[in-house]
């Protein structure tokens, strides 16, 4: 399939941003605060960061917010009135600046939210998102997208993928979907026709570090290994890895009451927390950190591929960067691949 490739001058990015803003789009772009770059609604071009290898948090909260109200209720003398959320209020969002690994992650996350039962709240939010991906010119020691079937110039998941042609260069823009074409149509002057098509040489080098098929097969026999204990000794059991991950979807459902009214919300949770699986009786099926660490890896590299035909990992490396105890998932996976069963 021939992808429509255009040239976007480096100064045109700001112009594109302004045009989208004028068209009342909410633009969700990387911005830096306290030295960390994360996605937030950008008011102006000056707030948008561009010099990052990867953001601290993923952009999954654009479709799967950390706290999502799912219903309101109100007790009255006639009984109970319960209202769902109004999907018409969901704004159109342009997700600006995500990496190819994150773009793939959107698909992996979506597979969870559409496994047999379709979560229409999630789907409606995602439907309003246009993804403007930016290829990676640089990578660091945490990145391993190529080991899980991705690559720094992957177009999958993006509506338009921009690749910068070297330091301070212009961009090749690949228009991949209809949503991408819609963006081009409101700013067609900025997307110039071009013959340039070769982007490979501008992309970061991300060597393949493990074979994910081998790991998946190994994991089937690896459940009882002592390696899980050794690997997880330094894990502190917080939720940082799950929360920054683009494909982690575990959630909690919590009610909040204020007198006669209240609401119910779906909010992020993590299988790494010690009380994630605890029963009211006190019985906890996963009451040691090694069992919880094992669950994380098994779920992403064995259970999800088996049941949902996708991996639960994009190789973005955020979990390792964010971990306060330096649990480096890449290291752990290589160690699993090399371990004897």
């Amino acid at each position, binding site marked *: 399939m021939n992808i429509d490739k255009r040239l976007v001058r480096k100064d045109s990015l700001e112009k594109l941003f302004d045009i989208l803003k004028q068209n009342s789009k909410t633009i969700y772009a990387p911005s830096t605060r306290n030295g960390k770059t994360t996605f937030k609604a950008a008011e102006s071009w000056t707030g948008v960061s561009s010099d990052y290898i990867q953001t601290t948090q993923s952009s999954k909260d654009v479709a799967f917010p950390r706290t999502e109200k799912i219903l309101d209720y109100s007790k009255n003398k006639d009984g109970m009135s319960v209202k769902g959320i109004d999907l018409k209020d969901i704004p159109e969002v342009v997700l600006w600046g995500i990496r190819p690994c994150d773009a793939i992650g959107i698909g992996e996350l979506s597979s969870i939210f559409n496994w*047999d039962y379709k979560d229409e709240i999630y789907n409606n939010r995602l439907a309003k998102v246009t993804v403007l991906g930016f290829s990676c010119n640089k990578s660091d020691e945490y990145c391993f997208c190529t080991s899980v079937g991705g690559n720094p110039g992957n177009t999958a998941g993006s509506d338009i993928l921009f690749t910068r042609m070297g330091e301070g260069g212009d961009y090749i823009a690949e228009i991949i979907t209809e949503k991408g074409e819609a963006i081009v149509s409101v700013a067609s002057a900025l997307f110039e026709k071009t013959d340039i098509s070769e982007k490979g040489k501008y992309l970061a080098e991300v060597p393949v570090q493990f074979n994910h098929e081998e790991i998946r097969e190994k994991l089937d026999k690896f459940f009882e290994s002592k390696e899980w204990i050794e690997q997880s000794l330094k894990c502190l059991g917080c939720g940082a890895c799950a929360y920054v991950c683009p494909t982690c979807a575990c959630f909690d459902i919590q009610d909040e009451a204020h007198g006669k009214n209240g609401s119910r919300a779906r909010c992020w949770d993590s*299988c790494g927390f010690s009380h994630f699986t605890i029963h009211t009786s006190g019985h906890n099926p996963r009451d040691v950190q090694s069992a919880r660490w094992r669950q994380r890896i098994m779920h992403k590299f064995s259970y999800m591929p088996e049941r949902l035909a996708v991996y639960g990992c994009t190789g973005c490396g955020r979990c390792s960067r964010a971990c306060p105890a330096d649990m480096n998932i890449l290291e752990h996976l290589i160690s699993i691949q090399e371990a004897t069963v």
Partner: protein
Amino acid sequence: MMDNLYMPYLMRIEKITYEAPGVKTFMLKFVNEADQKNFSYKAGQFGEYSVYGVGESTFCIASPPTRKGYIECTFRQTGKVTNALSGCEEGSIIGFRGPYGNIFPIDEWKGKSLLFIAGGIALPPMRCVIWNALDMRENFKDVTIIYGARTVKDLVYKDELKDWELRGDVKLITTVDPGGESPDWKGEIGFVPTIVEKIAPSSKDTIAIVCGPPVMIKYTFPVLAKLGFTDENIFTTLENRMKCGFGKCGRCNVGKVYVCKDGPVFTLAQLKELPDEY
């Protein structure tokens, strides 16, 4: 209203039955007639019952799908939500999401004998399939129910136990733990696995359905194996911490299985393939 997976049906508590200390049964009717008409489920499925403002809790649907117009649930007052449910009165409105989960393959059991073994508060998940079977009794050969609780007071569905005893086409054996008997207790005395061994029901052409606290299950399976039951013919329903009920929140993920989607009904053969994380 759009298709909101998380939106419960509004249910009115029609009748509250006090079963045992801390254990109640609610009979629930749909507030909206249309919901009632469109609702159907099969034995084995469960729901998320909620008290608005407090939260949701997971229980099986304890009434059989052969009885229309209402559903029932039985629960023990244990935690935050069950405490709040316990405080509800007849006429209160609660929420219900469901039905979720897989089913007891009762159609595949036609022509066979059924052996139900339950302990304590685990009779409710079985009650649904017991009544379902009894409502089409002619399809099965022998029906045996072995049910035990810690003490006489802890036996649930006391009225129905009488019904089953008096029916004539069901063999009912009730037991209480040693020391749990009352002066006028006429049933067996002994732990459920011990009584199963004593009664020694035949495994020929029989399906065993077992539900109970982990310790009871652990000792009952070997007894059934000794009696000749194969792993494929022993069914159980798993209790697990659940939240969403539809395979997304991750809490009930055990091995490659989600208890809320692939279960909660499992054969012993399937259970043996799961890691010991439930």
